[in-house]
């Protein structure tokens, strides 16, 4: 028996290894087949979804209502707001102000430069000179009139006496000479007085011109009151049509952040400066005496409250050569061309294209830009 085992041992040994190998291979193969199957590459990306936006026709779009895009878009009415934001912002300078105190307000002016102060002083002096010269002329006229009248009366009486036969011929001749003298002197005196008045007036005009060159309007200076501040705003030539007397304005200065001073445009300069600017003279109120002559200011002109149509900045689209917004029109969206103006924070002024109240896509309109372009192109 041992011999048989010995004979069969190699076969048994080999069969044992064969069986082991077979089992092992079976285990490995079953474990391989039990793993996850590789995916169909066709499942790599999903098929495209149904169109969420449709172009209905020229300038019209429609959104499928049950889409996240439709839910994302916010519609809000184009607002009509009263804004008093300046139409134009320019730079300026505080030229003069009246400080509180006793006495005539006209004597409490302070100016931004010695030249202006001198010009004002000269102007005031010239005013006084004109008045004096005027009065002088009137007096001279009266005096000369009286003198001529007296000489003429004397001459008449002497003539009567001579005609009456008195021997006053010499006195008559003398009286006639006196009359001529008086008339001549009257002319001379009147001429001098008139001349003095003219000179005074010219001096006054020159002083006014100097004031105006310095940016001040003499008329404005006449109406001085406590707290009056005069600013000169430099309006660039291109904006001259945008400014007129009587416009409301507001001023801010670099040295007083957060403070603003309201006023009105009093007058416009007669000529442009050498720097191609038109001086606009403004009168603002500053009872707290915070403004000082010489301060540089930022002046907003045209701050009268006015109605403007505004839309959120995110509602505006630039497509091609035009700006537009999307206006809800029933179930569709209509492309409306607009003319945008200035920014007002997160809003933009609409100068044309909307009248106010139209429901516009206020947010994420940019996501519809490709379709807007297509709608406009049709």
């Amino acid at each position, binding site marked *: 028996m041992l011999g048989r085992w010995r004979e069969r041992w*190699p*076969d048994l*040994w*080999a069969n044992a*290894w*064969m069986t*082991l*190998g*077979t089992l*092992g*291979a079976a285990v*490995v*193969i079953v474990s*391989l*087949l039990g*793993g*996850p*199957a*590789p*995916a*169909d*590459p*066709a*499942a*790599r*990306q999903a098929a*495209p*979804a149904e169109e*969420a936006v449709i172009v209905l026709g020229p300038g019209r779009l429609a959104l499928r209502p049950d*889409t996240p*895009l439709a839910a*994302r878009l916010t519609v809000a009415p184009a607002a009509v707001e009263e804004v008093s934001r300046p139409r134009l912002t320019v*730079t*300026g*300078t505080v030229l003069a102000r009246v400080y509180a105190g006793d006495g005539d307000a006209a004597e409490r002016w302070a100016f931004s430069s010695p030249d202006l102060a001198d010009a004002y002083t000269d102007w005031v002096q010239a005013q006084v000179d004109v008045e004096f010269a005027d009065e002088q002329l009137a007096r001279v006229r009266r005096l000369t009139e009286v003198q001529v009248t007296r000489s003429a009366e004397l001459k008449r009486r002497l003539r009567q006496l001579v005609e009456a036969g008195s021997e006053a011929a010499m006195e008559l001749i003398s009286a006639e000479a006196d009359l001529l003298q008086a008339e001549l002197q009257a002319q001379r005196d009147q001429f001098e007085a008139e001349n003095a008045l003219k000179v005074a007036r010219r001096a006054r005009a020159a002083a006014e011109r100097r004031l105006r060159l310095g940016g001040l309007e003499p008329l404005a200076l006449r109406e001085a009151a406590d707290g009056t501040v005069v600013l000169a705003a430099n309006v*660039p*030539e291109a*904006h001259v049509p945008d400014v007129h007397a009587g416009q409301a304005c507001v001023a801010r*200065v*670099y040295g007083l952040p957060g403070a603003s001073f309201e006023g009105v445009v009093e007058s416009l300069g007669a000529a442009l400066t*050498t*720097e*191609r*600017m038109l001086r606009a003279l403004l009168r603002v109120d500053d009872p707290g005496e915070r403004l000082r002559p010489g301060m*540089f*200011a*930022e002046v907003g002109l045209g701050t009268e409250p006015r109605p403007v149509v505004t839309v959120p900045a995110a509602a505006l689209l*630039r497509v091609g*050569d035009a*700006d537009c917004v999307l206006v809800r029109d029933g179930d569709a969206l209509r492309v409306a061309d607009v003319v*945008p*103006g*200035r*920014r007002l924070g997160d809003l933009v002024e609409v100068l044309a294209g909307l009248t106010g109240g139209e429901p516009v896509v206020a947010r994420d309109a*940019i*996501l*519809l*830009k*490709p*379709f807007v372009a297509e709608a406009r192109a049709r």
Partner: protein
Amino acid sequence: MTPSSAGRSVASPLVEWAMGRRAVVLTLTLLVAGAGLWCFSKMEVDAYPDISAQVVQVITTFPGRAPEEVERQVTIPIELAMANVPQVEVIRSRTIFGLSVVQLQFDEGTEKYWARLRVQENLSLVELPDGATPELGPLATAYGELYRYELVSTAGHDLMELRTLNDWAVITRLLRTPGVAEVSNFGGLGKQFSVTLQPAQLLGYGVSLQDVVDAIRTNNATAGGGVLPRGGMSFVIRGAGALLDVEAIGAIFVRTVDGAPVLVRDVATVELGHQIPSGIFSKDRTDEGVEGIVLVRRGENTSVVLARVKEAIDELNGGLLPEGVQVVPFYDRTHLVQSTMETVSHSVLLGVTLVVLVLLIFMGSPAMALLVALTIPFSLLFAMVLMYLVDIPIGLLSIGAIDFGIIVDGAVIMSDRIAHRLSAMRGHERKAVWREVLTAALEMERPVFFSMLMIIGAYLPLLTLTSIEGLLFRPMALTLVFALVGALIFTLLVVPPLASLLLRGGVPEWEHPLLRRGRPLYAATLRHLLRTRWVVAPGAVLLLSVALWRVVPGIGLEFLPYMDEGVVWVRANFPEGTSLQQTSAYGGRIRELVLEHPDVEFITIQSGRNDSGTDPFPPSRMEVMIGPRPRAEWTRVRTKHELVAELGARLREEFPTTRFNFTQPIIDSVTEDTNGTSANLAVELSGPDLDLLRRLGQEAADALRRVPGAVDVAIEQEGPQPQLVIAPDRERCARYDVRVEDVTGLIDTALGGDPVGVIYEGERRFDVVVRFDRRQLGSKDELGELPVFSQQGAPIPLRQVCRIELVDGQTTIAREGGRRRITVRCDIVGRDQGGFVAEAQRRFAEEVALPPGVRVSWLGMFENLERAKGHFAVVLPVTIGLIFALLVLTFGSPRAGLVLLLSVPFAFVGGAVALDVRGMNLNVSTGVGFAALFGIAIMNGVLMVRYITARRLEGLDLDPAIVLGAQDCLRPIVMASLVAILGLVPASLATGLGSDVQRPLATVIVWGLVSATALTLLLVPVFYRIASPGLPPPEGEAPAPDGGGEHAS
């Protein structure tokens, strides 16, 4: 019965030598193995080889200029200058606002530093306008992005501080790491010293913008004044006039007005500000952050560089950064490498296990199984030595592509023969064992030598592959060739000596019971087939033809299989003109949606572009990286494809007007560099008129959308977007005495933020910029109010001397080969690329009329497919021709060669059926598989003809010789085929990261071998009988075959 050794090969003297010096041979074997282990420790490990083309980029910043201007003044001159650079395959360029990127793609194999030197030489000759600063891009490729991190603070550091730390602490440290080419920053706020002008103050003081700029420039200087000697000492004199801080800038004297000095702070607000960001980075639920992207230098060992980078990061996190600031990586190539290596190791391990088990099953002897199995480690280590010498990294497509079943085939045949001889021996005298082993070795060395040579020869044409497929599969082919050479050496020179030592006690006579019982059945079947050969042969040919005709047309065609990189990369293009902040806000919603998916671990979003200029993208563009959780943790999806499909559907539903492209980071960037687009298919229209090209592009897109399978069809280049153009009116400028230079200076400096000076804080440098308050620039009108100064110093509003208008201008201008181009891209889903392209081209030809001057090209992955198709159309016939030549050399008979070539179509039909059944497409991977398969399939036939020839040389008639010879080789053929098949079964069924490339290749080989083996066993004898090739003339003194009597019919 034994096959006669009819002739010897060149290896036979070596076999004899090896048997005579066993100790030397075994010592050398150990030395080679040791060398292999050493090389293994030094070799780079990477998931995929670097498949990016040799590219040199010229990046030129030209701040504030519209794309049209940049193109005209920068891009075109550079392209012209580069036109004569040698070895350039194509020049492409991309121009956006303020940036030009010209990319030169060199011929494959061009040395990288040589290429850069040529470009630098030509670049030095280009005349560019002032302000345009060109430089070469980093010496890195798209493949080199191997590490991304986020700089995170838990101590309240803001974006500016984080960006400063990233620029001056983290990046500088990482750039000192050997092997790192570049580290890009993305996101954050770049610190600047900002001088914000107050127009009222400027005008009030009569100070112009230029006065302020000149004041800052001239008041920021240091000086060196020589040396002051004093006695025996000397003192270096230096002037310290550099600006140090905000206060110093504010105190700069500008001019005197009415005797009083006007300082900068009198006319401007000086403070710390930030650059206008070009990109915003966000991650998970953090809206804004700071990212760093590390690029490895081309040609460096990525695993070594990655390890160094991690060391540097540890050093930074260990104390070089302020308290609370950490570098937190979120993308690391290590993960891809590890995961891929796991897949490879898993497949290889299982494959090797199956091979060893099969050997055990059929040999019934652990010693025999071990003898054969030792071929595997030796061939692997031998291959590693050669891979190390030619710089091939360990990876999916080198070690991972080896079929160890094929490796051991030669050893199987050799050891089978040895076992057969030893089992027939009477007694186990040592010398007799040695003699029998030698005899067996000499008998089998020629068929083994030529069989292995045929398999090696089948891989050689793959070495001619070029471009992406070449970079992917040449390393694989080389590795396999090295491993096969190693296996051949081991089989011929080591197996016999080892066998003579290990099997001294002899080998019991044993055969697998199935084989033993199957042998008579096989013989009977063969006899029947031989008798009916004139029916069988045509029938087989007909069956083959029908199978090919039914199966092959249904198999799709694509360039590459999907190569999983782990993460998902998404490109999203919002409508042109979308601001950076808006794009980033949409990114927030995208992050929310993606993070809702339970199988997603992280998401990062890059809106806009990085700061280095290497990615010329507009603000409306976004790149998203989605990191899935480890596969084992997935709860909703089973595969990455499903994950991508779900995420894609969700994002497209949320943003239907946004173009999304789902891809992967490496392949996306690499194919974009190589082909100019990463799309599956792109239609390129080139010509001079961009508007015309865009219109044609739209028509092409409409045509493509109607082709079934088209997804995400869109024009790649972003469309026109509005530009605010400030154009000086020369007449008015003359009237107001304003120079155009002053207008452009205002735009550059006060609007664009051109730096006017620099402040150094230690090693760090920051720009000083002068500009108007951005809050005053809310509209065209407000912009028009900005003052530009006349020669007399008078301030003139900009609108008074300029036309300010909104016009449409180009967002991006793409060029190739000196022509502008528009690219219509699309991806293909649910069908093969070849079929799709054919239909798309037909529709295009029908629906789009091209005017003169416009050229069309078809690009993308499709271009690679065409090239690969053309290549394989040559490679496969050459392979077959090579095999045929070797067969004729082996057998000295063209008829024998032709008979054996029949294995090729038999193998092909098996592989084709496999692809059809498994729903796979024909691609480069399967092409490589087929090339390999043909060589392997021939091996069985060679063995069969060998054994039949041996029987005939004994004097048997043809039919009996055929039947007996076929029976003789039944066991080695079954064993060799089974190990070759099972060795790749794990790879053909693998699903882990990296398996997508192996799977098609393995599938083709596995199934092809199944059909080849079956048909070889049944039909090669029949065709041999029909062909009746002549016998080879005897050479030398081959020992007469013996035994085999129990198998005689």
